[in-house]
């Protein structure tokens, strides 16, 4: 198993961001997000799918709420909003986290990758290709989370075994129970 140290991994991600940022850079929010009067707010700097953004968030917002309700990144789903199902999994500085269980203010200075950031230059990630090929999504509601947890695994372990895939992904529920096809798809992406 090839191990990538956290430091090398973080550096790797930063390089990726520079490359993406070289393409037309989208600046911070043009329009401020409307917030409720009297509710504590904090301005944060956050990188989302390689784009630097400055946003003012209510302190009570979760990360998934920021992404879905305020930045229109609805590819990340909420399946339980209580840290049980994994549908909201995103990568925070390369680490897979349930975005329903992270406050948006904690993300200051962090880099977030969501399902919308998986395809690069119009080319799907090999995982996305394999998910299509092996009919991994049934209803598709857990799929973004399954993709992100698989992505995180493959970044740490480029050649996982079938059991390592199942173990890594076990915090991501699929009630259509298409677990067989999810694992097959990840194994196919590994081979690709």
């Amino acid at each position: 198993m090839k191990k990538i140290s956290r430091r090398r991994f973080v550096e790797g991600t930063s390089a990726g961001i520079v490359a993406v940022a070289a393409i037309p850079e989208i600046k911070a929010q043009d329009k401020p997000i409307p917030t409720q009067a009297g509710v504590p707010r904090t301005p944060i700097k956050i990188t989302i799918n390689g784009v630097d953004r400055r946003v003012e968030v209510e302190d009570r917002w979760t990360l998934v709420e920021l992404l879905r309700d305020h930045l229109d990144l609805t590819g990340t789903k909420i399946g339980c909003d209580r840290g049980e199902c994994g549908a909201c999994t995103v990568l925070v500085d390369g680490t897979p986290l349930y975005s329903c269980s992270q406050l948006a203010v904690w993300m200051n200075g962090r880099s977030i990758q969501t399902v919308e950031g998986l395809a690069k230059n119009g080319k799907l990630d090999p995982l996305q290709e394999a998910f299509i090929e092996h009919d991994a999504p049934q209803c598709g509601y857990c799929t973004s989370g399954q993709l992100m947890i698989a992505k995180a695994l493959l970044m740490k372990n480029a050649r996982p075994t079938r059991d390592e895939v199942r173990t890594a992904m076990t915090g991501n529920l699929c009630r259509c129970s298409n677990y067989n096809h999810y694992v097959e798809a990840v194994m196919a992406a590994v081979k690709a």
Partner: protein
Amino acid sequence: MTPLKTVGHGTHRIDALQRVTGAAKYTSDVHLPGMLYARVLRSPHPHARIRKIDFSKAMALPGVKAILTHENCDITWSSGDQLGQRRLFNNPVRFAGDPVAAIAAVDRHVAEDATRLIEVDYEVLPFLTDVEEAVKPGAVAIHEGGNLSLNNQRQPAPQTYKRGNVADGLKAADRVFEASFTSAHHNNAQLEMRVSIAEWSGDRLTVHAATQGIANCRTDIAKDLKMSADNVRVISEYMGGGFGNKNQCQDSDLMAALLAKQAGVPVKLEFTRKEDFVAVHGRWSSRQSYKVGVKNDGTLTAIEFTALTGAGAYRKGSCDLSGTEIYQVAHLETSVSPVYTNTAVAANYRAPAYPQGVFGIESLMDDVAYAVKMDPMEFRLKNMTRKFRDQTPYTSIGLEDCIRKGAEKFEWTKRWNPVPGSGAGPVKRGAGMAMGMFGSGLGRSSAVVRLDGQGQYHLHVGVTDIGTAAKTTMGLIAAEELGVPLEKVNVVWGDTDTCPYSVGESGSRTTVQTGMAVIEAVRDLKKQIAAKGAPKGTEVLTAMATTNPPPLQGQSRNSFAAHFAEVEVNVETGRAIVTRFVSAHDSGRIVNPLTAQSQVQGGAIQGIGMALHEELLYDKRSGLPLNAGYYGARIMTHLDAPMVDVVWIETDEPYGPFGAKTLGEPTIIPAVAAVANAIYNAIGRRVKSLPITRDKILGVLA
């Protein structure tokens, strides 16, 4: 069976790209300008009368725009109760989770804060959580007329079926067996929670709904809000699963519509995961008792079956039980009584009446087979159904092949222990099997197909595709009948303004019913092309069909299945895991083997969860649910799921689109019993109660 060009070949979903890039728009992804967010306040008591609701503090909170309670909203939610006894907001409240108020505010936090400011004065009433206690004389009545609900003909009597005379059948038997089984209420637990977004434009209402059927959702909303269906539009572009709990219209659709009307702006109402577990619905629980007569050579002579089923607080589902029909037996009497308790409502969950009923009968038949010293597989081959209710021929039946070919793939003779429980332990291995069947009737549905001047076909079907790949299936059927590649067919779905009536994804009927409408519409279009020539420029040819076939005369159309499970049971810890699983299915011709395989594997794994862990538990002293949510209710995970091998028995079926029969629901039916029988084969003791948790395994071994 003749191979076809497009149908019958594994094909990616036409919307797979949207599903893997996050581009697919589910109901909760819809944001309308000026939209409010709503939350529901629910009863904390299992049974209580509301004396007074004071919402002045809630309404005084800045940002709160609308509120509904039983005082200002007297709407009957007709698809929430087959007997019409359920309002959107009920007084008395009859289970912990019954809605008391719904409130709309500028964002979800304000709405949540506001629900906490509502003050409700409750008169707490005695409650019941147990079906057997609910039918005892003197039990507190949850509804007028008592706790025994009406049968499906609305008579105060059980649901019954009878052929022959059980007393005669038992007299003719060499041996008589009796046993009782129970099964738990467990949740559909689809990943997408109940969500509705309602918007009014004058008298016209648009509801973005997470629904399994846009057409029925629309007519139900219109009925309950006393509107013309022409003024209701339902949109469901992508749908995150339902397994039966998003049929028809939901209370959230009506609440969102009424809040939006009051506030004058669109309203989004999304339930929480906890609400989804306690306040939507799950599969009905059951208490089943059987008496079975058998001859020494293993021939069945009689089955007597009585049961109570747990409807919960309202009668949302049929609460019936099925299973005995998979056996050939001259004398059969069944009686099922739905019972009210002050617990979560029960209704449709994938093959609603089947897996728990099949668990009962197939567990008992397993015991009978061992008792008459027969291999359980041979016993089933001897006694399995050959005609529907021993009388009506099937249009096609591949059950014997399901058993034989499934057994071959599973290596039954190698894996099954002739002496149950004979393994050395502590980890004991065993194998079990069970069979199942499900109706696959033809019925009404519509389709529209257009050909434009650029040579593109557009197929309009009222499906929502709840994960079944229904859109793709409809496209494949159209492409096959047109003789063009799938890419030439643009499928339009999910909006009642652009799509004709479809039965909706319930009863596993879409492929068969809407598929037939697609074929007929295409045939009409081909006739038009032959007569008028292909359209040019801005010309369009349009054809539509509504199929409304008469019932099959003297025949029954059914799908069949046999499942095989191998388990390892640790007799020291009680832990059971499924190590191998084979699902063999006769669903006629398989339209798309790739997506059909997903469904079969998923159905089996759901069944394994139902067999081993899943249950919504209630505290009998407080009447409150104990384990709502994914962790608590122990929903299947990646690590729990075995590899499921699929065997197709493609019978030559004369009816249906290219001979396709029903598939989605049969996939769960025999799975539960197969696991239960494998556990018996491993440990030599029978657990008669679902789920078969560790404590129960240790209990029967003690």
